[in-house]
């Protein structure tokens, strides 16, 4: 089971397509839940951003049944100490991940809002971070969902699905779970 913890301002029905897509790609049932995270505890006033590693640690304080995954979705701008920002972070081969919608919306870049594009980006980033929890590395294929994206247009270039190689690695992992 994959638990999606909605800590964002997005309405639950906006996740319908994402949950379906993530469930079929990752071959796991996906359920949307309310987020129990105390986001403010991860705020860094000097950077005006939220420490994603600290938020991951909060998720991990919950004892999770073996093989279950938790992914939080937040609106705030995330960072890890050495980088200026991150779209998300995951516990590699673990059970927790987090994704921020902050830099996925067109408005952040001063261009007109596009809800469809925004949800597609969120879907890709959620599957990408969940992919790490299933032990997938970054992929060199530019259109594979596991390709590392460091700017938003790069997210748009990739598909929501993994390439054949990543898909087979994923299947090997999910079958062993």
């Amino acid at each position: 089971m994959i638990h999606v913890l909605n800590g964002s301002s997005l309405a639950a029905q906006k996740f319908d397509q994402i949950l379906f897509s993530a469930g079929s790609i990752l071959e796991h049932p996906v359920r949307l839940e309310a987020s129990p995270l105390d986001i403010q505890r991860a705020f860094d006033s000097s950077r005006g951003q939220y420490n994603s590693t600290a938020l991951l640690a909060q998720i991990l304080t919950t004892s999770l049944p073996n093989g279950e995954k938790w992914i939080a979705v937040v609106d705030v701008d995330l960072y890890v100490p050495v980088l200026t920002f991150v779209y998300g972070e995951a516990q590699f081969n673990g059970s927790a991940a987090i994704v921020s919608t902050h830099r996925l919306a067109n408005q952040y870049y001063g261009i007109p809002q596009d809800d469809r594009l925004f949800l597609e980006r969120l879907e890709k980033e959620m599957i990408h971070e969940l992919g790490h929890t299933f032990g997938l590395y970054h992929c060199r294929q530019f259109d594979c969902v596991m390709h590392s994206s460091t700017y938003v247009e790069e997210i748009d270039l990739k598909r929501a699905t993994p390439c054949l190689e990543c898909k087979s690695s994923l299947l090997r992992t999910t079958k062993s779970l």
Partner: protein
Amino acid sequence: MNGKNSILIIDDEGIVRDSLSKWFNEDGFLVGTAENAAAGLRQLQSRKWDIILLDIKMPGMDGMELQQRIREIDPTATIIFITAHASVDTAVQALKSGAFDYVTKPVDPDHLSHLITNALKQRALANENTKLKEQFSEVSKVNDVVGDSPQMKKVYEMIQTVAGTDTTVMIRGESGTGKEIIARAIHSNSQRRYFPLVTVNCGALPAGILESELFGHERGAFTGAQYRRKGKLELADGGTLFLDEVGNIDVKTQMDLLRVLETKQFTRVGGNNIINVDFRIICATNKDLEKAMQDGVFREDLYYRLNVFTILVPSLRERKSDIPLLANYFAEKYARAIGKSITDISSDAMDILVRYDWPGNVRELENAIERAMVIGTPPAIRPEDLPFQLSEKKKKPACGSLAEMEKEHIIEILEQNHWNISRSADILDIDRVTLYNKIEKYGLQKPA
């Protein structure tokens, strides 16, 4: 990213190490971390790392100092400095010290991603370059210098001694002894080997042409000079200039050449721009330069400028023990080139090769073997494939006394001329009476 790439993060802040190692781990890197210089050095001794991310400010040994220690262990390490406080001074210092790049915390993920990609590409290119250089050095080893005789061993020693220096070398030896091959050997073993070896055959060009050949010319410098042309001196920049048959340069060009050798500057024919060049000179001659100097046809100052380190290449007849080695070497070379399965030289043929005097030296031997390979049939080169046959008389060891030699010589000339006394006397450059006296003295008789 390639899963085989490795990265070592040396930073005293645990949080930086953790977030970077997580980032690179997801990229498929093999990640190592170290919290201080000592731990970093231990990691470096345990394996070779593709990229090292190094914090400039650390307690104890700082990043700058550690970088020097890293270079002692792995001179090719790709080091990227990271620091919390950017300043122009530290950036300049870092880059001057040989670091690949420099980033400030926090790093833009896109910048970091590009930086690492570029560092890996540069490292791959550097590795490829090293490999190619090694391969080049291997193939450019001068295989044509063949010989196992003490004389040639001395020549090899001299090549090794002088190759690594920038000293001017004069190679002396008879025509065909392989002076150009020795020059190539010196160049190929020198620091200048990745630059050209430019050969100028001074003996083959008339004075005016040689000047233009060496110095180049500007457009319109003389009739027919329609385009500007670079001379051999300019082409040899960074490399070696080999002046073959240097004893044949006319006195005017000798003077110009001397000036270039002294200043490493020259102007093209018909030009005013001073061109700076950097090359090493190797020259070769089969002439008696000392005599040419006495006769006033070779400048003394140029002679002393060129005659710094002399390598005397022995003639082939002085190193007869090398003949079988050389003959087999050329046989193998031409069998490959021509595609014939002649793999051997018969003992009779080898006997002839060893006893021949080789006035044309190694070049003549090479030509003889090439010819034999063309006309010969497998499996071996036979005496009849060789371009000459040694007569039984030549096989005879030279006679001991002068009188004996005179007698043998007179017999040979008489036989060649069917005992025609007048013609034989002409050839021997003696009068007929003297020839008759000698025939009588040696008791020679016309064959029946």
